[in-house]
């Protein structure tokens, strides 16, 4: 089936099998390998991207369901070489170690801050419940979200 979508501002048109998962479309067809596969069963959040403004686990969606959609992946977050404030905050606060969960974490965090511009620790932690990180113990990720939120308020 032919689909057309916009990823990070660029238009993609491809013939895809109907069973192709969106994450595999992004990684293998569009060759945007920043979003990762940690489980393929919607339990880890490593594949989180933004579809039409909402954070979505891209392993739970078929590529054909994204026909006509506007998608943002981690690769599309920085603009003209300037990091997104969340990327900057993850970096400053040491919110990552191996980095495998990080693209999904940052995309999920973006949605949390859109919902809660001034989030409590509890809101951050519950907002991140769908994203597993095995390295950091989450504390520095929590700090990163707090720092990004504080930066946005300035």
């Amino acid at each position, binding site marked *: 089936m032919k689909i057309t979508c916009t990823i990070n501002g660029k238009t993609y048109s491809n013939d895809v099998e109907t069973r192709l998962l969106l994450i595999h479309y992004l990684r293998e067809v569009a060759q945007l390998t920043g979003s990762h596969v940690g489980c393929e069963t919607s339990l880890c959040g490593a594949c989180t991207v933004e579809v039409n403004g909402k954070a979505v686990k891209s392993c739970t969606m078929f590529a054909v369901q994204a026909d006509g959609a506007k998608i943002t992946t981690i690769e599309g977050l920085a603009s003209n070489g300037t990091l997104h404030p969340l990327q900057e905050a993850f970096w400053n606060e*040491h919110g990552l170690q*191996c980095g495998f969960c990080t693209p999904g974490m940052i995309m999920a965090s973006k949605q949390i801050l859109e919902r809660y511009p001034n989030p409590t620790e509890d809101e951050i*932690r519950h907002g991140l419940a769908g994203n597993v990180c095995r390295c950091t113990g989450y504390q520095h990720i929590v700090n990163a979200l707090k720092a990004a939120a504080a930066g946005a308020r300035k």
Partner: protein
Amino acid sequence: MATTIAGVEKEKLVGKRLRRREDPRLITGTATYVDDIHLEDMQYAAIVRSPHAAARILSIEIAAAQNSPGVIAVFTGKDTEKVGGVPCGASLPGLRVPHHNVLAVGRVYFVGHPVAVVVAKDRYMAQDAADLVEVNYEPLPAVADPEKALAPGAAPVHPEWPDNVAFTFHQDGGDVDKAFAEADVVVKQRITSQRLIPMAMETRGVVAEWHGADRQLNLYTSTQIPHLVRTLVATMLGLDENRVRVITPEVGGGFGSKLNVYAEEALMGWIAQKIQKPVKWIETRRENFLCTIHGRGHVDYYELAAKRDGTILGIKLKIIQDVGAYHQLLTPAIPTLSVLMMPGIYKTQNIRADIVGAFTNCMPTDAYRGAGRPEATHGIERMVDILADELQIDPAEIRLKNFVANDQFPFHTATGLMYDSGNYAAPLKKALDLVDYGKLRQEQADARKQGKWIGIGISTYGEICAIGPSPATPAGGWESATVKIEPSGKVTIMTGACPHGQGEETTFAQIAADELGISVDDVLVVRGDTSIVQYGIGTFGSRGTAIGGTAVYFALQDLKEKIKKFGAVLLESDDVTFSGGNVVCNKTGQSKSLPEVAASAYRAMKLPPNTEPGLVSTRFWEPPNFTFPFGTHIVVSEIDGQTGEVKIRRYVAVDDCGNRINPLIIDGQVHGGIAQGIGQALWEQAVYDDNGQLLSGELTDYAVPRAHMMPWIESEHTTTPSPVNPLGVKGVGEAGTIGCSPAVVNSVVDALSPLGVRHIDMPLTPEKIWHILSKGA
């Protein structure tokens, strides 16, 4: 701290909370993990695995799979019989090592055992075809519990060893019989450390590429030990080691689970040769649960002998280690680390340990964060609490009484170690102050009166790090570094360690920047490609900085000498100093910058006497000893009387990892370690049923900690430098995990102590606690 040379102030970078230099590629999604590698005409492999824990393979029908769209090859164990066995690198007297084929031959031994492999044009086609492979099995009786496996009449995992004993090990230190004969009190407890699943976020994965004309294999694999994988896979495949190139791109977490050589690594190398095309295999999460090593798997029987005043006289320990169906790389070595660590940081000189390794029809156990030391620490720290309860002595006081004293270092333990340095009371006192221990006990007493279940748990741990001196390790315990100062003065460090989240691209740059008086931005750290980096051991056992960093340090000292020599020639002086990034003539004050000196070293117009051109040094540093970090963790927990749920109200960690190169990174290591410790204490468990089926084989059933499950960690430190290496560092990768679980369990046992509870085995699930509460009430 600053050094002033030629009027230039250079601020020391070691000790600074620098943000990491490896992060830009990771936060922008531009890093390359194995699954991100795409090669021309690359094929995909899917593996057919056994659904039975024990069965004879009667037949395998592959025709339907072969005819499936996109399939180019299907292989079974018959095809791969000539590939060497999956290696066990550890040795013990009398160790029984079953031959471990890369694909099962005739019989399967655990659920997930690879039986056949399908290679196709894309991963969907490969999986479709794998589903068409028909394997006819004759199921056999299985055994999944180590104690049941050792009982008479148990089903034999390997028919040639009907008792299921994989190995035994005995160690005696001091005079344990005398200690027990003289004891006023002996406390005994069976303590388990349950099987765990390491669950790195990136599953394993391999891409293999064969260049037939050169007989050269390129193997991209997600590993902690690229060079050892190269040596061992070359052996398995009968290839020349120097024609196998192992490339470790970004690695998405390991925690010991990638400190191994797996069947799939050799299998993909073999397939690439057969099909003459590159091939990729990426482990699914389900496979990761079933077929990547598990951790822990101990049943421990402890006896502690003591005097009435709380002085510990001796310890007896019997470990039953759940081995699984095979030995992976280090399987039998792991419980011997528990024995080494069994006295903890207490001065008792009398120990007796016995290990029995039991084969079971399960995935092999091996190194998982802490590898043997969390089990030992959990055991001794639980036993000390049980003793304190028996004698009605405060748990902090009984620890202080038994600590190795500051003037006893270096301290020879009953298990044959020499603790390098320590001040064990310091972190305990600091942690007690932080929680305001006296007041806290009072609050606990008040809360109890109101019917609340509040507990305080203390764990004072020690660990064996910087693993380790070569004679004590299966594969060499040194580490290597090459430092190159390029003609421009820029510095490239090639480390034999293989960091995968630990941040050495930053910490090694900090070390080099200080030694050479340059900026971290002038330093590049390279690792993980056996054709670029000199032979190395890898990253595990909290060794990266303590051993790998020390190798870097010594290479830098060589270069500093050479820089001075070249600088002296340029300055036409024999009295020069190198500092702050310049060689300075001590007489005239004239100076030459590092780039100027480096350029002259390569231009080689005039060489210093007996000096070769260039500025490169390679060092292999052999540590004279392990290092021994330590610390205190205190947990305050509250139990929900209705649900049995444990809530951690405070977590205080005071860790001493020696000198601190980057405290920001250290905090991250501590947090992550504690998360895995809390995971074990409260939620995680690899559960096999009696038939050897893994019940907790998905993220739905296996409870890894998520953000909302974790408490805030208050992290503090003391600093006791290690005398083992010139950096004074000890290592911190595993400390959090090792210190954590007994602190959590001690707090919960303390909370429930009014019910007469003395011990609970992990994980402390709400169900388990609820049952205790309902029985007690």
